[in-house]
């Protein structure tokens, strides 16, 4: 009994963590799908989004915990998403778009530069001390069949599921989503179909950045917010995207969730010391690169002749 409920406990924790990774991984994978480029500033866009969310929440939440604090939580989350979306689009316009015809290394270096600019500016403006979001509602865990679940975990799972399902519907079924897929498959031909590729790229950055901000805000709820938080979180989500098959949206979701489960179960069941937890992602990356370099759901890309 004990071991079964323990298993479900870790499963729950792993899914929550994995859902957050998945949200971030989606941004990497969508941008890669369209521009064949890794946006290394993605983690820092997440960081800015969580700060904006946190500030908004603190400004409007009031004193008493109640219905309003829950509403305020979502308003703050949306504020963070919008801010990050605009930030993501601006970064693309200023730092990546002018380099689209340059060597492939150029936008990559530009992205690393943007990453440092964002995290240093945040440290300068907001200080390096880490902050935590005040609980929008009572977080006393309740137990179902011996598994302790916190209301926050449920909130995180619900938000993650809503985001993933709407993204998948949007990309698969909507007109803009179809244009996004066409642009990622063949940008020139998409243009010849009258698709404004630049606009589609901007939308991709906006969506990816908003998802990252959401993830960052959820992290603020569970863990904390600090200027360099984007670094490790971003890297791990990037690993998740590669493990799932970079460029593949379902792959990013799968990769993120797998990584969350691996980290949780790795520490709990395989006895990997907690201090070594962050290495699990990278070991998984190396194994995947050796066995299935295109990722779990990725397709082998033939070089164009």
């Amino acid at each position, binding site marked *: 009994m004990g071991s079964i409920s323990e298993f479900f406990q870790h499963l729950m924790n792993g899914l929550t963590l994995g859902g957050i990774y998945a949200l971030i991984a989606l941004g990497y994978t969508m941008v890669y799908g369209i521009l064949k480029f890794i946006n290394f500033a993605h983690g820092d866009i997440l960081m800015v989004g969580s700060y904006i969310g946190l500030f908004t929440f603190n400004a409007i939440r009031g004193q008493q915990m109640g219905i309003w604090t829950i509403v305020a939580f979502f308003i703050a989350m949306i504020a963070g998403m919008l801010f990050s979306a605009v930030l993501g689009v601006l970064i693309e316009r200023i730092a990546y778009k002018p380099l689209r015809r340059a060597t492939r290394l150029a936008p990559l270096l530009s992205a690393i530069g943007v990453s440092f600019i964002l995290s240093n500016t945040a440290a300068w403006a907001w200080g390096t001390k880490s902050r935590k979001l005040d609980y929008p509602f009572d977080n006393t865990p309740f137990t179902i069949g011996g598994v302790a679940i916190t209301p926050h975990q449920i909130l995180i799972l619900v938000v993650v599921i809503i985001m993933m399902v709407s993204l998948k519907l949007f990309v698969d079924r909507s007109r803009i989503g*179809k*244009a996004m897929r066409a642009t990622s498959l063949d940008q020139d031909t998409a243009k010849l*179909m*009258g698709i404004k590729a630049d606009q589609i790229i901007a939308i991709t950055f906006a969506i990816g950045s908003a998802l990252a901000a959401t993830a960052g805000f959820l992290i603020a709820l569970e863990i904390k917010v600090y200027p360099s938080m984007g670094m490790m979180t971003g890297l791990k989500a990037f690993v998740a995207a590669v493990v799932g098959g970079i460029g593949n949206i379902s792959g990013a979701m799968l990769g993120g969730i797998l990584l969350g489960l691996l980290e949780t179960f790795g520490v709990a069941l395989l006895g990997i010391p907690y201090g070594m937890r962050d290495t699990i992602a990278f070991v998984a990356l190396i194994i995947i690169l050796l066995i299935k370099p295109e990722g779990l759901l990725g397709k082998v890309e033939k070089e164009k002749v």
Partner: protein
Amino acid sequence: MIVLETKKLTRAYGGVVAVSEVDFQVKDGLITGLIGPNGAGKTTLFNNMTGLDTPTSGQVFYNGEEITNKSAHRICRLGIARTFQNIRLFKELSVLENVMVGLHFKTGKDPLKGRLKAAVDSYLHVRTEYDATHEKAMKWLEFFGLSEFADELARNLPYGHQRELEIARALATDPQILFLDEPAAGMNPSETESLMNTIRRIRDLGVTVVLIEHDMKLVMNICDTITVLNYGRNIAQGTPEEIRNNEQVIEAYLGKEEE
């Protein structure tokens, strides 16, 4: 009436001049052939008229309006569509979706709604948008007899059908002019025969067709007028009959006798 025209169009890549001062004209409602030996600059000329490439010098006019430096998506929206020599379908999309992408900008137009609202609407009414576009796209598939493959991935279509799908997708953008880059390449005689019929049916829809082709039987049979390029220059222009008897053209294809 001339719908499309280039004036002294030149495209050089470094020292290599692919197209040199070409004056090319397309007349409304006709099928125009563009022929010439390999490397004569035919595809380069196509690329420079459809916005995929920018001329080094010279101009392109469409219905009297200069479109020389316009981007590909704007030229498409003005009414010019094309296919490629090496078929460029969206291979991972379904056959139907390929045509729906061709309908993209038509279905997005709604002057009463702001852009943001249109975007939100397309999101909230996913199904509605899908249905309207779906119907139009199916009509194009029927035109080419491809309805039964609608839900297949484009990559899984047999070669001949892939060519047809590429044309269907281009027609979905509702062009006034359709450029076909070697539509018969890789086709067997019976496929070529049916392609000729298709091209005539497209012309009968009121679409002006311009095609690059090496299959002389096809060119001589269906083209109303032919332009010949050699070494990037326009060496002849006329009816199939005139082209067949033009000495410069014969020379370009067969070589000079004393060399």
